[in-house]
């Protein structure tokens, strides 16, 4: 059984067809990359999966571990193990990083029937994970994403992913706004979380991220559907010939 199953989904925004019958199957232990030009529907796909208001399906269905997501709100999907690393992480003024993380982690633990972590246990765990991600304690004391640099925001996203231990992680343009050093740190953080039980879907415009997070499968998204799938070599083809060549060939 696949971990994430997207079946022929169609979605409109403002009466415009954005996703036009997209299907994708992701199994445990796999990393999939979805590449596509601007306006191909990449961000719409990630919001649709995460269950954002206004991104309801017109037809088709999505399953997480065999369970349909249709009737699940965004927060239920998150607690069930679906994680979205945002392209533009949102600022929460006055909300401390540590308290935010703790609320999130305890919501997930409660859902899994695990005991909620008390303050001390949580801080200990968070510090351990943070140090691996090169996230300084000081950053956890600041308000969520407020005044963070582009690199810090992305690192904090991946730190949250590491703390929440999701089944399926969708990384939406995680490389945007990162210099090479930051890209490496973030990628290392993601790679450290790859295991046989979870799956990662990397949504990206450029191939360079895939040098660091090497995917098992690459899919080309164009005009609301996947027009070509292959191995990592497909990403190199995009790099060499651009999207236009692939789209015209399809």
């Amino acid at each position, binding site marked *: 059984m696949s971990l994430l199953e997207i079946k022929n989904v169609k979605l409109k925004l403002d009466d415009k067809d954005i996703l036009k019958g997209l299907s994708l199957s992701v199994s445990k232990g796999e990393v999939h990359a979805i590449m596509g030009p601007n306006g191909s529907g990449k961000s719409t796909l990630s919001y649709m999966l*995460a*269950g*954002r*208001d206004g991104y309801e399906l017109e037809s088709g269905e999505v399953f997480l571990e065999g369970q349909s997501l249709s009737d699940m*709100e*965004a*927060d239920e999907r*998150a*607690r069930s193990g679906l*994680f*979205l690393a*945002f392209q533009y*992480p*949102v*600022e*929460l*003024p*006055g*909300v401390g990083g540590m*308290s*935010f993380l703790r*609320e*999130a982690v305890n*919501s*997930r633990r*409660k*859902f899994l029937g695990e005991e909620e972590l008390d303050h001390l246990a949580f801080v200990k765990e968070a510090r351990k994970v943070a140090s691996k991600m090169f996230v300084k304690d000081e950053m956890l004391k600041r*308000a969520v994403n407020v005044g963070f640099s582009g690199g810090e925001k992305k690192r904090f996203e991946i730190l*949250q992913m590491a703390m*929440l231990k999701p089944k399926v992680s969708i990384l939406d343009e995680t490389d945007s706004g990162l210099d090479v050093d930051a890209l490496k740190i973030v990628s290392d953080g993601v790679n450290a979380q790859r295991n046989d039980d979870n799956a990662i879907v990397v949504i990206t415009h450029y191939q360079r991220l895939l040098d660091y997070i090497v995917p098992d499968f690459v899919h080309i998204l164009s005009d609301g559907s996947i027009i070509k799938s292959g191995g990592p070599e497909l990403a190199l083809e995009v790099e060499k010939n651009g999207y236009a060549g692939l789209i015209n060939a399809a």
Partner: protein
Amino acid sequence: MVATQETIDKVKEVSSTYKYGFVTDLEAEKAPLGLGEDIVKFISHKKKEPKWLLDWRLKAYKKWLSMEAPNWAMVDFPKINFQDIYYYSAPKTKPKLNSLDEVDPELLRTYEKLGIPIKEQEVLAGVAVDYVFDSVSVATTFREKLAKEGIIFCPISEAVQTHPDLVQKYIGSVIPISDNYYAALNSAVFTDGSFVYIPKGVKCPMELSTYFRINEQNSGQFERTLIIAEDDTYVSYLEGCTAPQRDENQLHAAVVELVAMNNAEIKYSTVQNWYPGDKDGNGGIYNFVTKRGNCIGKKSKISWTQVETGSAITWKYPSCVLKGDDSVGEFYSVAVANNAQQADTGTKMIHIGKNTKSTIISKGISAGKAQNTYRGQVQIQKNAKGSRNFTQCDSLLIGDKCGAHTVPYINQFTPHARVEHEATTSKISEDQLFYCLQRGLDTEQATSLIVNGFCKEVMKELPMEFAVEAQKLIGISLEGSVG
């Protein structure tokens, strides 16, 4: 830290939308309905007051008769029938209590429902609590420890008997009977409240706290609190309020007077959670309060912190009169108005002495159809050279049917002073909500988190045990306002 899911669940369990909406079945001893000279005399007689106080009350009553209710606040409510209110009611308890065992068990159960078991409070929190139940204080704790320091902390009715000179000297010295309509009314009919006296050089070793409850139907509450801090002292006073659910409007017109001498500091914190009325604005408490502190001494400091989540109508402007040179006034406020609630609240900072400083941080949150107004006055008088004020006034809107208003009055009579005013208005964005939901928080948790983040600068001014309670309250008050 924010309101936990448990808290929210617990509240949902209660069938009523208002957590503290139960009524204690206690037989009250009442004055006859309505207000007149005879009622004022009845109250004074019940309390075995000296003649000077009765005369003072009667003078206030006459003054009140000649006054008009203020109508400048942005609040709208039917005219109050002052003849339809009971002005005195007392639970039937023994007048002298040697221990908590002697307190009416029914009363103790009420406090337990409120989550403030007296014994636990005593032992765990180290807080001396002067409980006001309806109008008469029934249990006062930690008196001995405080007495060792020479601190007086007792019901004001008791202080009238035991320290009449102090009461006579200071009552009405900050807020004269003619100050405003509701202060005059309070002066005529106040029933009880707290009295605190900190003698020279003493730092009060614990937070002093009073829990108020309005209980008897139709009995407006008219507390009167007086805190006097002599030279080189410090005291922190907490006031928290909850009230049972009622259909009829209940009037509350309290007066709080603070006096700070040389180098004295008074910190006064309030969490107000009275019944706000139902979604359509039926019922709920009218909270018309006059609070003012006199910084008489040099380098004295008075700091007001308030978290206002309850009441149908809030009309409240805790103020500081900065007479002493180098004195400091502070006002930190969070006002939450949801559904049909109306809040018109703020402060007055009157700079009289040289080099006086004031800081105003106000956070207003409006949801539902509520109207939330910040109204503040900063006055720098002619001799207040070198004085400074900083005001920051932020409003957060939830939904598109509520309103936020900011009405600052700035009067500066000397060029040698600096006044700054900053104001912002924002909304909880859909992006913020979605971000929180995507991390597994539900809408209530997310709202509570974002709103508490918005209020953080004020919340950190609250004493620790109060801050936790207040954060939960803010979350609870806004339930159902998003999504």
